[in-house]
């Protein structure tokens, strides 16, 4: 049984590791190296400039703005999405009127789950084009059309949405929440079904209210899933490139108006592909690397709870 074990192990691991190291890890590592150069990206010429790119980043107001926008998304997107998804999941699984059948979801739960999940199967780029049309700044956009119908705006004075510097980031956040809720709803539902119904029934027999069962039973038992969701949403918030690059105004990867929806990903891509500042773009990448690393560690530590066995 032992013979031929090592050739087999090597044979099975060789190609995956070559691909992974060559196309993922090595580029990550190179990002660190290039960030210390003034490389333009167009030619092979580059000079070692030490930490010059990093000191330049410190004074770069566009970068500071982008970092701030990413941070806002990083906090708001997970909180809002998880709260809405948890609420819906609770409704769909245990929010229904109890009968002799015991604890159950509301009517039509299966239907809602299928519909809410729609945005998740559509490419974010398709959603971007779609929302670009919805957010049109005249009465031809669906959002303005609805506001006009409700009397909250007029055809002569429509809401500017993406062209409004104060609104653009919120519009982006709304799309991200809109598309994300369905997935986390299904995720939380799956976890909730793992919780034995007897626990709820026992609690209800003891006189617990619906709200109490949510905070005292569901949430503690789902904590690990919520944590997972948090990490995934944080990754989405750090990226959000496709959406911002294609729906916000601004030549080359959006970010407008006047950098009000600029994210690090859009700024990085513009510096690299348009401005010919590959070295500078890599420095941004490195900052993000540490930013992500620290945030992951902090959030995992801050949300740490003892695992509850059930």
């Amino acid at each position: 049984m032992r013979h031929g074990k090592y050739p087999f192990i090597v044979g099975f691991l060789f190609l995956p590791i070559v691909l992974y190291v060559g196309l993922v890890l090595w580029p990550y590592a190179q990002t660190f190296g290039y960030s210390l150069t003034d490389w333009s990206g167009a030619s092979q010429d580059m000079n070692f400039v030490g930490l010059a790119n990093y000191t330049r980043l410190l004074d770069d107001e566009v970068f500071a703005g982008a970092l701030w926008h990413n941070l806002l998304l990083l906090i708001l997107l997970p909180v809002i999405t998880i709260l809405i998804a948890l609420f819906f999941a609770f409704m769909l699984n245990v929010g229904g009127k109890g009968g002799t059948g015991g604890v159950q979801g509301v009517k039509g739960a299966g239907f809602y789950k299928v519909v809410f999940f729609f945005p998740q199967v559509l490419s974010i780029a398709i959603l971007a084009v779609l929302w670009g049309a919805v957010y049109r700044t005249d009465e031809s956009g669906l959002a303005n059309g609805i506001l006009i119908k409700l009397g909250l705006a007029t055809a002569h004075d429509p809401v500017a949405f993406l062209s409004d510097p104060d609104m653009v980031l919120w519009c982006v956040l709304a799309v991200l929440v809109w598309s994300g809720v369905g997935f986390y709803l299904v995720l939380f539902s799956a976890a909730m079904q793992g919780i034995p119904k007897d626990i709820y029934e026992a609690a209800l027999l003891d006189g617990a209210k619906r709200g109490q069962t949510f905070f005292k039973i569901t949430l503690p038992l789902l904590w690990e899933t919520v944590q997972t969701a948090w990490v995934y949403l944080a990754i989405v918030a750090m990226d959000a490139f496709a959406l911002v690059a294609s729906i916000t105004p601004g030549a080359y990867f959006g970010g407008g108006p006047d950098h009000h929806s600029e994210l690090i990903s859009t700024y990085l891509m513009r510096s690299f592909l348009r401005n010919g500042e590959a070295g500078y773009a890599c420095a941004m990448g490195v900052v993000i690397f540490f930013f992500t690393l620290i945030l992951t560690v902090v959030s995992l530590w801050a949300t740490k709870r003892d695992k509850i066995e059930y």
Partner: protein
Amino acid sequence: MSTLDTTASVPGQRTAGSKPKPHRGQRFGDGGGVLNVFSHGFLAIWAIMIVLPLGWVVLGSFKTDSQINGSAWSWPSSFHFDAFSRAWSKGIGGFFLNTIIVLLGSVTLTMLFGSMAAYVLARYEFKGNRFIYYLFVAGSMFPVYLALVPLFFMVRNLGEISPYLGLNSYAGLILVYVAYSLPFTVFFMYSFFRTLPSAVHEAAMLDGCSHTRTFFQIMVPMAKPGLISVGIFNVLGQWNQYILPVTLMQPTQAGEADHSMLAQGLVNLALQSGYKSDAPALFAGMTIAMLPVLVVYLSFQRQVQAGLTSATLK
């Protein structure tokens, strides 16, 4: 998942709130009535918020240009498919085909390489096992765009080795997709292979089955549920990929074939002049890009939902 759909028809559910009678249900229903109206309202509003924009886009592909630029509430005057054929001829068809070609290759290879590596890491003890495993896990933590700049040049250099692997080539993109899907696939399949009973594996080995054959003929069929889950996850993830094709699939010189992926091509057409004068064709293009996925999703929604969530929960 399956328990949910049956719950709606449980008898006695309606009586619990309305008819007070000495019945267990009365206590369970406490507070449920108000909450139910409230929650149904929210659920219905959210459902409308999802369906309305999608339906609006589909309707838009039947409208005329002036209707689309007029009120959002206009109804198409006639239902014909001109805009669809215009959208198709502007390249949507080609983008669709490109995406299918790349996904066929990349998903197959991701699953093959991912499960091979995961199997060895989960089932064989050797020096460096832990190190390799954590190497893979670490890769899933960071956004892709951190590696974009060097990756671009890496792929360009690959193109100098063989023109089939360089920028704007299917094979190049396939390899990149595979590489970036590996961490999660390995991570997931690793935990799946760990849960499979080792007795079958040992029996096969005692009967003289080789390591390779044990893997392909015994372990892979046993891991089918896990493979389906992570397979769906990869199909959706790679279908949704945008930043990688935008970086790697630009024609490097004039006259080169456009190998854009569907999502990328659609955004390009929306941003550039492609549809400036032809809004219905843009809406039709979106419909073409949306409908196949929605149809596939609706036919397999149970598997997709179960697959995606178990993939994330592991």
